[in-house]
């Protein structure tokens, strides 16, 4: 400890406060001062941080610290290192906030958002941070990893795979309910370096194995996310989220840069000033809808089925313009229809449902019978539905009349007997 403090005193003014670890022995006083003078504060150095020498490359040797003083804006080495400890005190969030205060206010918003989020179980520390966001000349957070090993548990930081918006630093906080994990576990983009095929195979194989239990969130499930108008696809790991709300907020942030780009009327300044709330409105309003392609190749609206079912069947995600998505039906009904479409070849009476759907929902909907069904059967089903329509009308009519007659007869009998 002495050496560390010596080190601090020598490099005095140049030393930046770097709260790498959310150790509970850090006093709240220290952290609050950081909030006011983030870049200029010299004291309140976390001793343990310097001792363990963990942190980012370049942040280890003391002479490096002198470079920090030259930087007014937050740079690579000043990546906000979010303490990710299973600590009980709420101060942790404050410290993140303070460390990241050099970044855009996007982070502040997310911190606020975080506290509202219902899925985070703060006292267990079961939350993960997505520390991302790169702003040239400003903080570059992508690829941060901090590893702490207090008493054998491993903590690290997870950063969202493709979410690197350049104009706003979007530090996302995503909570997961990993009840078994005493410590939050997070991962860097592309680390450990394993092909996604292998990562996905770990998921599927471990799911089917009954004995493997108690493991929090096995593997990863990467699906491609595309957006109309975005230059390229991204991939998200669905297992990082446990509810639709998290997924949609993550996607909002991921694609915010593209949305802003499209709707910002005047160059750069507009981008910076566009607030998070406006963004949310954009995405939640009729502007864009989130859809997914399921195992059968149908495009459904996200949000109808339970989350687990969604994860199991989602193959791709797409953010499409609201106008394009009008034709999509509710997913559960689609599933039903698809099933019925196949069955209708054998049981023409199910075509009735299709007829109803056609009439009321979408005129030109034609259910997918699958690729191996010849065209004539499809035609037959159309014809059969018309016949059935007619037939069932007549049949119902007769039934009704029969009932009336029966009732009349019965009543008469009854009446006769009663008298």
């Amino acid at each position: 400890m002495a050496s560390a403090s010596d080190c601090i005193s020598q490099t005095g003014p140049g030393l930046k406060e770097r709260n790498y670890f959310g150790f509970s022995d850090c006093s709240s006083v220290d952290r609050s001062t950081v909030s006011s003078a983030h870049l200029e504060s010299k004291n309140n150095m976390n001793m343990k941080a310097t001792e363990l020498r963990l942190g980012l490359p370049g942040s280890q040797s003391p002479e490096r610290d002198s470079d920090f003083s030259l930087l007014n804006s937050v740079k690579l080495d000043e990546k906000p290192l979010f303490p990710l400890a299973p600590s009980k005190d709420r101060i942790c969030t404050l410290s993140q906030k303070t460390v990241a205060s050099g970044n855009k206010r996007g982070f502040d918003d997310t911190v606020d958002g975080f506290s509202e989020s219902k899925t985070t179980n703060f006292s267990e520390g079961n939350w993960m941070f997505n520390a991302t966001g790169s702003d040239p000349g400003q903080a570059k957070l992508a690829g941060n990893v901090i590893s702490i090993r207090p008493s054998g548990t491993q903590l690290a930081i997870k950063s969202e795979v493709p979410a690197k918006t350049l104009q706003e630093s979007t530090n996302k906080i995503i909570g997961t309910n990993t009840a078994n994990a005493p410590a939050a576990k997070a991962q860097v983009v592309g680390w450990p370096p394993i092909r996604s095929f292998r990562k996905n195979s770990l998921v599927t194989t471990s799911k089917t194995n009954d004995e493997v239990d108690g493991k929090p969130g096995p593997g990863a499930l990467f699906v491609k996310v595309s957006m109309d108008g975005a230059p390229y696809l991204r991939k998200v790991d669905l297992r990082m989220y446990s509810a639709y709300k998290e997924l949609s907020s993550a996607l909002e942030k991921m694609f915010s840069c593209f949305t802003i780009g499209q709707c910002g009327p005047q160059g750069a300044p507009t981008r910076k000033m566009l607030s998070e709330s406006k963004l949310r409105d954009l995405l939640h309003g009729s502007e864009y809808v989130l859809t997914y392609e399921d195992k059968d190749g149908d495009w459904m609206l996200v949000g109808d089925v339970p989350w687990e079912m969604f994860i199991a069947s989602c193959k791709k995600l797409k953010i499409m313009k609201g106008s394009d998505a009008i034709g999509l039906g509710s997913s559960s009904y689609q599933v039903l229809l698809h099933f019925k479409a196949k069955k209708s070849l054998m049981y023409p009476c199910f075509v009735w449902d299709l007829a109803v759907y056609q009439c009321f929902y979408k005129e030109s909907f034609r259910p997918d019978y699958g690729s191996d069904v010849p065209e004539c059967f499809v035609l037959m089903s159309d014809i059969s539905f018309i016949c059935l329509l007619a037939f069932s009308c007549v049949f119902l009519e007769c039934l009704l009349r029969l009932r009336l007659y029966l009732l009349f007869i019965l009543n008469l009998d009854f009446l006769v007997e009663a008298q």
Partner: protein
Amino acid sequence: MCLFQFQSVMNYFPEEVLEHVFDFLTSHRDRNTVSLVCKSWYSVERFSREKVFIGNCYAVNPERLIARFPRLRSLTLKGKPHFADFNLVPDGWGGHVYPWIEAMAKSGINLEELKLKRMVVSDESLELLAKSFPNFKSLVLVSCEGFTTVGLAAIASNCRFLRELDLQENEVDDLKGKWLSCFPESCTSLVSLNFACLKGEVNVVALERLVARCPNLRSLRLNHTVPLEVLQKILVRAPQLSDLGTGSFTHDPDSETFIKLKNAMKNCHSIRSLSGFLDVNGRCLPAIYPICISLTSLNLSYAPGIFSNELIKLICHCKKIERLWILDTIGDKGLGVVANTCKELQELRVFPSDLYGVGNTAVTEEGLVAISAGCPKLNSILYFCQQMTNAALITVAKNCPNFIRFRLCTLDPIVPDAVTNQPLDEGFGAIVQSCKRLTRLSVSGLLTDQVFLYIGMYAEQLEMLSIAFAGDSDKGMLYVLNGCKKLKKLEIRDSPFGNMALLSDMGKYETMRSLWMSSCEVTLGGCKTLAEKMPWLNVEIINEHEAGEGEGEASCDDRHRVEKMYLYRTLVGPRKDAPDFVWTL
């Protein structure tokens, strides 16, 4: 005087003889060297070359390839940079194979083999491939994407002499088509079929019939939807298999089917390589004990459901194993068993099984030390571990000086020595110093510039180096660039190397295949300088914020750090199929 005579002798050497001599040269490098000797040798070599290897598909274009090697029969192409495997390269970056196939088809090349790695293969390209080359025999796709089972169906139905269809770890959109049934009844030439990466069901009846009519079938790898019963029937029909990848390997061990499988396995005396087990029940493993004794290659890395003790029991039977790929569920203890049993082991890969959990089953440095002590022939290792120490690495270096590939990956990228909390510089330094033949190295853990000094000093044969979260300053990269004379591929991520290192020796990059730097300190200005001075390099910047950005934006400032830079030497200038977010300077 001597030289004059020698030269005249060489001039009268008939070309047919030269050609015959060159036929014995199989390595690409030898052939490349031979073609540099003189013009006549260049010409002879060029007309006799049938196999061409192109390590970077953008270094040259199809027209030049065809112009130089008109008798091309076998082509190997690699597309995206290595880090694309780990989601660091956005989709749509490039690496399309269609232009190559189109050009070869138009020029009447008699293509017979195509091996692609990390390329984008569309269904159209597969169809064009199938229809344009009547003698097409072998298609190997590794880590590719962009195609569906429709493309596979085209290959199956049109390639009459197809011998090999090998799909390894590709992203295939399985449209549940009946591609397997598209193999015509006349197709009897199949030698190798690997569809383990497909996710959908296949027509098992068609599969069985196919296996039955292909007597030369040596390698068959099924996907996880093929049940055990079908595997049993296949083994009965094809006992000559030498490489088997099982499909689903779960069944009731007491059932008749399982007993039949065991008997079938006993009959398969030729199986030397076993993989698959994508869906496995540990209690079914005893069925493979009879073949374990003669196995040389075993891949259990897709099977996290096998417990450590079951793995150990299995390994005890595998005495002749040379290549072992397993998950870290085996634990240090299991690795100790491997060390005691598998004395012929040459290549070991230990993959992580638990990417997100706390994970008590991970391996540590003890396992690695045990392996190095017990397996004297070990020359290639890929090891994902929870922790590592310098002492362990030094011991490993002493025990195994024969490493050709050494890839260590700590699950936490900047973890220091677990015992001393020092950086792992000394450990890796010992490795490079001791292993004189090291050609591929991946480092991880807490590392300073010192390790790069060691690498530069000692790793003379190093050709590929992967760096992540390492180094303190530009000096690190400088050591490597100055020291490793044979360096071909350098990939760096999240390390503080900047313009000074990048620009210090620009000529070096023309001797290398490619350089990848992401999340480093290199700025746009540095990249521009490099691009201006080196016309034979393509310097590509991947911008992730391209949408809606106009000229004169803040991000065009030369002082801004570039997110991702990929540069490679090329003969054909900037590529024409670069998407919007890739900016070639």
